[in-house]
C-alpha cells in the first residue's frame, strides 16, 4: 500500500514534494479565508426582518487591487518553481540511451533491457539507488506509465517514443498503474516494479538470460508439444527457440514472476489453469483466445509453463 504524503523518492521527485506542500499551504489559507468570510458575513449581516434593508456599505476597491497583486505574486512564485522542477525531472539527453524500453499492450507490459538483451513482461526489475532512463511506447492504444513513488507519469503513445527517469532509493516492490483509459481491462493493467540491490539485480539479469528449460517429465514434454500444436507460438515468444512472435507476453521465464495478467493474479498452477481454461472468464476482453482444452491438455500445458523458470 502506498503510504501517505510525502511519499516520493528523493532525487527525481524532491521538487514535486516541495511544490505539493507549498501548494497545499497556500490553498488551505485561501480556502480558510473564503470559508471564514463567507460564514462571518452571512451570519453577521443576516436580515433581521424580511423587509430589512442594508446599512449600505461596500468594500473598498483598493481591496480588488490588493487581491490582484497578491494573486500575481503567488503565481510568480509557483511559476518559478514549476519551470525549475520541470527541468530537474524531465531533462533527457539529446541522444537518449534507455536502460529499459517499455511497451504498453492491451492490457500488459513488455519490458526490454537493451544493454543485457533481457526481455520480460509485466514485472519490471530495476537496480535500486540508480537513476534509470525509460523509453516508453505503445503497441496499440494510448497507455500511461505511472509508479507514484518512483517518478512522473508519462503517456505511452503509438507512433511516438517518450522518455523519463525512474529512481528507487531502496530495494523493494513498488506498485503503479496504467493511467490512461485503454479499453475494457484498463483497471487490470497494474504495474509492479521490483527494485533490487546491485547484486540481486545482476543475478536476476543472469537468470533471465539463461536458456529456456527444454527437458522434464513426460507431462512436461506433452505440454511442450501442445504449446506448438495449439498455436500458442503464434503469439508468445520463448527465447532460445524458434518461437519469437511478441504479440503476447514473452514466456521464457514466466514462472520466475510473482504475478501475471498485468499484476492481477498470482503465478501458480491453479490460476494458470483457470486462465488457460477460459481466459474471458478470468479477464474479460483479454486478447487471449479460448482454445477449448481438455483436462489432460490443461494439465500438460500448466506443467510445461509453470516450469519455465
Amino acid at each position, binding site marked *: 500500500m502506498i503510504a501517505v504524503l510525502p511519499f516520493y523518492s528523493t532525487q527525481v521527485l524532491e521538487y514535486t514534494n516541495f511544490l505539493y506542500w507549498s501548494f497545499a499551504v497556500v490553498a488551505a489559507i485561501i480556502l480558510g479565508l*473564503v470559508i471564514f468570510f463567507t460564514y462571518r458575513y452571512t451570519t453577521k449581516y443576516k436580515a433581521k426582518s*424580511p423587509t430589512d434593508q442594508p446599512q449600505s456599505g461596500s468594500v473598498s476597491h483598493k481591496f480588488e487591487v490588493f487581491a490582484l497583486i497578491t494573486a500575481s505574486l503567488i503565481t510568480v512564485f*509557483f511559476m518559478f518553481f514549476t519551470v525549475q522542477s520541470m527541468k530537474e525531472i524531465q531533462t533527457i539527453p539529446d541522444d537518449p540511451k534507455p536502460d529499459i524500453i517499455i511497451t504498453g499492450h492491451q492490457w500488459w507490459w513488455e519490458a526490454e533491457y537493451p544493454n543485457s538483451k533481457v526481455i520480460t513482461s509485466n514485472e519490471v526489475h530495476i537496480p535500486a539507488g540508480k537513476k534509470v532512463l525509460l523509453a516508453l511506447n505503445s503497441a496499440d492504444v494510448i497507455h500511461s506509465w505511472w509508479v507514484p513513488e518512483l517518478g512522473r507519469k508519462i503517456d505511452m*503513445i*503509438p507512433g511516438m517514443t517518450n522518455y523519463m527517469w525512474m529512481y528507487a532509493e531502496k530495494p523493494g516492490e513498488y506498485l503503479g498503474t496504467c493511467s490512461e483509459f*485503454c479499453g475494457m481491462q*484498463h483497471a487490470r493493467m497494474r504495474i509492479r516494479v521490483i527494485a533490487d540491490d546491485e547484486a540481486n539485480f545482476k543475478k536476476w539479469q543472469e537468470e533471465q538470460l539463461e536458456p529456456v528449460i527444454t527437458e522434464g517429465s513426460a507431462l512436461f514434454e506433452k505440454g511442450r508439444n501442445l504449446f506448438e500444436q495449439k498455436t500458442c507460438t503464434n503469439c508468445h515468444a520463448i527465447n532460445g527457440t524458434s518461437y519469437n512472435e511478441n504479440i503476447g507476453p514473452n514466456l521464457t521465464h514466466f514462472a520466475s514472476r510473482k504475478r501475471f495478467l498485468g499484476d492481477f493474479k498470482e503465478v501458480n498452477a491453479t490460476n494458470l489453469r483457470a486462465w488457460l481454461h477460459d481466459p474471458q472468464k478470468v479477464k474479460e476482453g483479454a486478447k487471449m483466445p479460448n482454445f477449448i482444452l481438455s483436462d489432460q491438455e490443461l494439465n500438460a500445458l500448466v506443467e510445461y509453463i509453470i516450469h519455465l523458470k
Partner: protein
Amino acid sequence: MSLFINIQEGEDQLPEVTSDKGRLLWISSVDHKQLGIMYLWLALFFFIIGGLEAMLIRAQLAVGDNDLISPEFYNQLFTMHGTTMIFLVLMPALIGLATYLIPLMIGANEMAFPRLNAFSFWMTCLGGFLMYFSFFAGGAPDAGWFNYAPLSESNYSSTQGVDYYLVGLILTGMGSIGAGLNFVTTILTLRSPDIKLNMLPLFAWMIFINGFLILAAFPLLNAGLFMMLIDRQFDAHFFIPSSGGSAILWQHFFWSFGHPEVYILALPAFGIISEVIPVFSRNKIFGYKFVAASTVAIALLAFGVWVHHMFAVGMTNTVNGFFAASSMLIGIPTGVKVINWIGTLYKGSIRMTVSMMFAVAFLIDFTIGGLSGASFAIVPIDWQLTDTYYVVAHIHYVFLGGTAFGIFAGIYYWFPKISGRFLSEKLGKWHLWLFVIGFNFTFLVQHVLGILGMPRRIYTYPSRFGSWEIFNMISTLGAVMMFVAIAVFLWNLFITLKKPRTAPKNPWEAWTLEWATNSPPDLKNFEEVPRVHSRRPLWDLANPDNPDKRLN
C-alpha cells in the same frame, strides 16, 4: 419625459399566434420562453438518466473486486455519464435559462432569430436522443467522453457506439452554435434603446461573452468529430498512427474545444451567482466593472490553456511551461471574482432563501474546485495527479459544486417568474442540505484517493487495498445522499406545479427588467418597457428619490 416607451415590432411578422395553450403549440413554438422551458425539461430528463448512471458507477466502486457490472457496461456507463452531464444537462440547462431570461432582461420581446432558436433546441434534443439510441443499436459509446484516438477508432471500438457519439455531438454542437449566435445577436441588437452595454445585468453580460466562446469553441469540436467520423466510416487515417495519422491531433482538437467548454459551463453560472447574491444581500454587486471585464479576460485566456489537459503526453518543457503560465494566469480573474461575491455580502442585509444558500454553497465548493484546478497548472503536480481520482474530484467540484449549484440557485430564484409559483422553501432546504453534504462526502475523499494512486476510469480495484475501499465506500454513501436530495427536489417540483399561480411580479424585490413583467410573463413580454438609467432599473422605479447614478 414618460416613464415608459413603446418598442416597435419587427417588419418580418411571425406566424399569428392566438393562444399560449395546447401541446402542438409547444412543439411548433418559436417563443423564447417556451423554448427555454423545454430546454430546462430536457436538461432535467437527462439529469435523472445521468444521475442513475452515476449511481450504478458508485455501486460498482463501493467495494473492491466487485463484479456487479461488467467492464464493458461500466465503460459505456462512465462514457455516457460524462457526455450526458456536460452536453445534455449543463449545456441545455444554462442555454435554457439564458433563452428564457435574456430577452426579458434587456427589455425585448423575442430573440433575434426565433426560428434558429427553435432549431437549436430541436438539434440538441435530437442529438441527445440519438446518442441514447445507441443502447438499442448494439452498444453505447465506450471510449470515454473525451473519446481518445486510437481507442475510439474502429479497430479498437468495433460497436456503433462511438458513431452515435460522434453524430449525436455534431448535432448538439450545431444546436449550441445556433444558440451562441442568437445570444450575441440578441444582446447586440435588441436591447431596449436605453440600455448601454455597461448597464447589462451581469447574467446577460456573461451570456453575451459566452456566446462568443461558443462560436469559437464548438466548431473546433465539430471539425474533430467530423474527421473521426470520416476515419470510422470511410477509412481515413486522421487519428490512426499505424497508418500515418496522429493520435495526439485528436487531443489537440478535443481540448482546444474542451477547455473553453469548461468556461462555457462556468460563465453563465457566474452570471446567475452575480444576480442572486446582490438581490438577496440587498446590496449592489461589489465591483461590477471588474466582474464584467475579468469575464472578457477569462474568455480570451480560455483559448490558450488547453495543453494543461495534456501535460503527460510528453511535450517539451517549453510548451508545457507556456501553458502552465497561461493556466495560472486564468486563475487570477476567476479567483478575484470570488472576492467580488464575498464583498457583496459585506454590510448587506442577507435573506437566506434556498436560492441564496445554494449561492453561498457555490462560493465555498467552487473555490475548492478552483484551487484543485490551479494545482494542475503546476506541471510536476499534474505529472503525478492527472488521470487519477483527484481529477474526478476536481471536475465535480467545478461542474457540480460550481455550475450545478449555480443552476439550482437560479432555478429557485427564477421559478416564480417562469411558472408563477414558489417552490417550497422547506423542501428546498432539505434538498439543499442533503445535496451539499452528500456532494462533499462523495467528492472530498476522492482527492485523497487520487493522491493514493487510484486512476480514473477503472471499473474495479484490488480489494487488498484497504484504504481505497474505505474512501470509495464513503464516496458511495455520499452519492446516495445526493440521490435522495434529487428525489426531494423532484417531489418539490411535482407538488409545486399543481399549486395555483400566486407569484407577484417581483417577489424578491429584485432590480432587473425581467421582474417588471407578469409572473409568468405574457406571450408578448412587454407592452411597454420601463425607462432604464442605471444597472438597477426597478430600484430606480421603486426609489425615485434615491436612484442609482445615471449611466446614460
